[in-house]
């Protein structure tokens, strides 16, 4: 049964430009090619296995 997780982080622009609302991911993100997804743009819901909650 696939598990999804809804993430939240303080947002400034809300459209994916300012990079305030990132969450760590297990895979490289498509924007900065580090392991930070933008919760406002790439989420806020992620497959649970992609979210790095450590």
């Amino acid at each position, binding site marked *: 049964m696939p598990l999804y997780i809804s993430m939240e982080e303080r947002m400034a622009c809300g459209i994916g430009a300012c990079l305030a609302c990132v969450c760590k991911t297990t895979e490289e993100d498509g924007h900065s090619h*580090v392991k930070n997804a933008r919760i406002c743009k790439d989420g806020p819901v992620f497959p649970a296995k992609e979210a790095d909650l450590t």
Partner: protein
Amino acid sequence: MSGFEPKTEVNIAGVTLKNPVMTASGTFGSGMEYGEFFDLSKLGAVVTKGVADVPWPGNPTPRIAETASGMLNAIGLQNPGIDVFISRDLPYLAKYDTKVIVNVCGHSEEEYLNVVRRLAETDADMLEINISCPNVKEGGIAFGTDPKAVEAITKAVKREAKQPVIMKLSPNVTDIKVMARAAEAGGADAISLINTLTGMKIDIERGKFALANRTGGLSGPAIKPVAVRMVYEASHAVSIPVIGMGGITSGEDAVEFLMAGARAVSVGTANFRDPLASLKVAEGIRDFLVRKQISDVNDIVGIVS
């Protein structure tokens, strides 16, 4: 009154901008997100997020906190690195009729130069050098707080840059005139100021710092009077053009900076409340000129003395 259309073109170091409004680095990404809200061709220039020679992950979250009439940010210069920037972001901006100013960051002189050299092979119009980055060779103190470092990094960049070079000054200094003169002495074609003021917020309910990084940069309307004062001082200390920013939310705010001595302005934090903010600032400047029957925006630059 009808048919009166003021001239809004300004020239910064040989580059002609259709109007004096740009975006502040870090608030606008590389334009893709805001491009969905308005035609970027209406801006004088887009100043991109700082780009380093490799991807930087940035700081842990929370990265931002709201403060009275402003905000703190400690994004930590997360960016995709110069390779992705050149292959993905520059081609997007090239589709628009607006100047492209690339903000450059680094932890050492060599890192800045790596980016400057790569950008010399592109059609970017100008470079804006972010010297609020921590200088790892000097123990993490920002380049922009030591006039000798400001002059040295300016000289080094100017030796390799193809495009005109704007040095973006930090306001966290004792005397902004000293920093402005150091940039000019190093050969800067222009200066831009102010970057953010270092601040802190404490979450008293949790008894913790509001930001994971502890300190962050304060921006927004709260800093405008400091910014106007520094733009005034800097523009009287050097003869190179000054780009002013800090809390601009309207055409009227922008006119203050122009009258203080700025040739152009950048709009940053205001974009977070209204994605069309930079557009409205450009329109507001024009409306002011029409109301005052001033035929050329350059006629108000530095008139307050």
